[in-house]
């Protein structure tokens, strides 16, 4: 007993420096940002007060809904496509390969710098880019396709490219918990491929699927660099608007309020996604007799 207590005390002491760091540079700033969302800004100076003006100003502007919708669309499309694309690859890696070479190959591409990948896609999709010039040389089109670049398509394609290795990492570690024997048992009991997937694999890798979806969603919906560089005029998002408040225009409390509204929509998306999996009977922890 003495030993256990001492072990715990040592544990707390070891964790303390990180806790202090996270307290000062994570918890306090987050609280400060929340408090500031109720302040006002005048001529670039912050005025501590308590008002809901920033929230009502954002929520009463029609444009704000449009930009938030754009942000959520970027997030949802990226998350759906990334999970759908990486699931079969994760399945292959876990059940069909013995070595880890393929897995590492995919993982390494995650470390290809974020900005460089945005730049690469801009080069490829641009009106003088690889796709347009190739199509024109082949005589398939006369004019460069302008929709390729500066469109939601370009944003989502690039975000998928950025997020897919991470989604795969989460799915692979989730599938590693679903042992091959369970799948074989289900097959022996007469389950078809679809049933094995929906009744065994997905419910058992539930946490990984939710994690991969939500991570991809949150990071892409909150991203402001990709839509700013590739999204064009119609691709403007709340993220860009928030970033601008803190970089150029300079109404910090307004930016903070919009950030918390965006965060609230992320939370709602999470609950809706979990509910959807529940309704589709892909969630674990229930017995299905039918």
């Amino acid at each position, binding site marked *: 007993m003495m030993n256990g207590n001492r072990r715990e005390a040592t544990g707390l002491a*070891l964790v303390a420096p990180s806790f202090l760091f*996270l307290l000062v540079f994570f918890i306090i700033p987050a609280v400060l940002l929340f408090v500031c969302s109720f302040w006002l800004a005048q001529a670039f100076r912050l005025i501590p007060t308590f008002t809901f003006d920033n929230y009502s100003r954002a929520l009463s502007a029609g444009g704000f809904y449009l930009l938030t919708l754009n942000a959520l669309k970027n997030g949802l499309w990226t998350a759906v496509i990334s999970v759908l694309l990486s699931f079969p690859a994760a399945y292959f890696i876990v059940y069909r390969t013995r070595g880890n070479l393929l897995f590492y190959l995919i993982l*390494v591409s995650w470390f290809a*710098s974020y900005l460089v990948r945005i730049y*690469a896609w801009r080069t490829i999709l641009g009106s003088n880019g690889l796709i347009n010039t190739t199509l024109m040389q082949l005589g398939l089109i006369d004019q460069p396709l302008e929709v390729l670049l500066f469109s939601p398509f370009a944003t989502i394609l690039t975000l998928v490219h950025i997020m897919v290795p991470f989604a795969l990492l989460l799915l692979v570690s989730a599938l590693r918990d679903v042992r091959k024997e369970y799948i074989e048992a289900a097959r022996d009991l007469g389950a078809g491929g679809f049933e094995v997937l929906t009744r065994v694999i997905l419910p058992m890798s539930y946490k990984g699927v939710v994690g991969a979806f939500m991570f991809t969603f949150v*990071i892409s919906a909150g991203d402001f660099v990709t839509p700013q560089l590739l999204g064009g005029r119609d691709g403007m998002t709340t993220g860009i608007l928030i970033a601008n408040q803190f970089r150029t225009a300079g109404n910090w409390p307004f930016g903070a309020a919009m950030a918390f509204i965006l965060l609230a929509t992320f939370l709602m998306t999470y609950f809706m996604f979990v509910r959807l999996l529940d309704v589709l009977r892909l969630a674990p922890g229930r017995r299905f007799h039918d």
Partner: protein
Amino acid sequence: MLRIYVWLFVAFLYAPIAIITLFSFHASPSLTFPFEGFSLRWYSQIFANPTFVDSLRNSLIVGASTAVITTILGSLTALGLARLKGRVQTMFGLLAFGPVALPGLFLGIALVMLFAQISLQRSLVTVTIAHVLFTLPFFIEAVRSRIEYFDLSLEEAARDLGATPLQTFRLVTLPIIGPTIGGAAILSFALSFDEFIITVFVSGNDTTLPLMIWSMMRRAVSPDINAASVLSLAMSIGLILIGGLLVWYQRRLALSARAKDTEA
């Protein structure tokens, strides 16, 4: 079928990287085929640019400082978490993971708010603080699974035999978890080296490499940006490969040592 799909998947991931790498060696400024021959002119042009050299140096300084601080904080945390149980462990685990569960935008604006309130001038110091915050969760996550298998009774045995806490750490703990920590430290460096979203808010006058690439992207397109991008890619991917090989090699050594022990 599935095999073909997976290789197409890998091709999708690497094609854009391969294309800009190829064109960074292009003799002409054009970014399209036909390819008109190889040249290193964009590389010599970028290295002649003092802003590039400065930002590369800044990125190396920030990356190294981040890796050192994150490694110290993260290793202590992982060792501490192995000793904690139940709710305390879960709570702290969640807290430590928090910074990556939010978009970088939130961390960036929250930090810039804090720095303004405490009147901390934005500089490479504030950038390093932000990078430690961003890399710490990855470090802890990477090291944790290894430490969960770490047998605390080995440390206790050393203590019972009269070793001081420091000796125990140096002679027992470190040799076991060392390679994993080394790998995770390299991971932190690579993540810091590429970080842009938070950096854009907390940086002062000194730019890092991603900030420089960003400003090149916003100005006129000049092919030397290809060279800058490829150098940045080579740096981070190269580091990750070295870190991965290191961990893999150490693990092999440990496994073959264990095999020898059981034979004997």
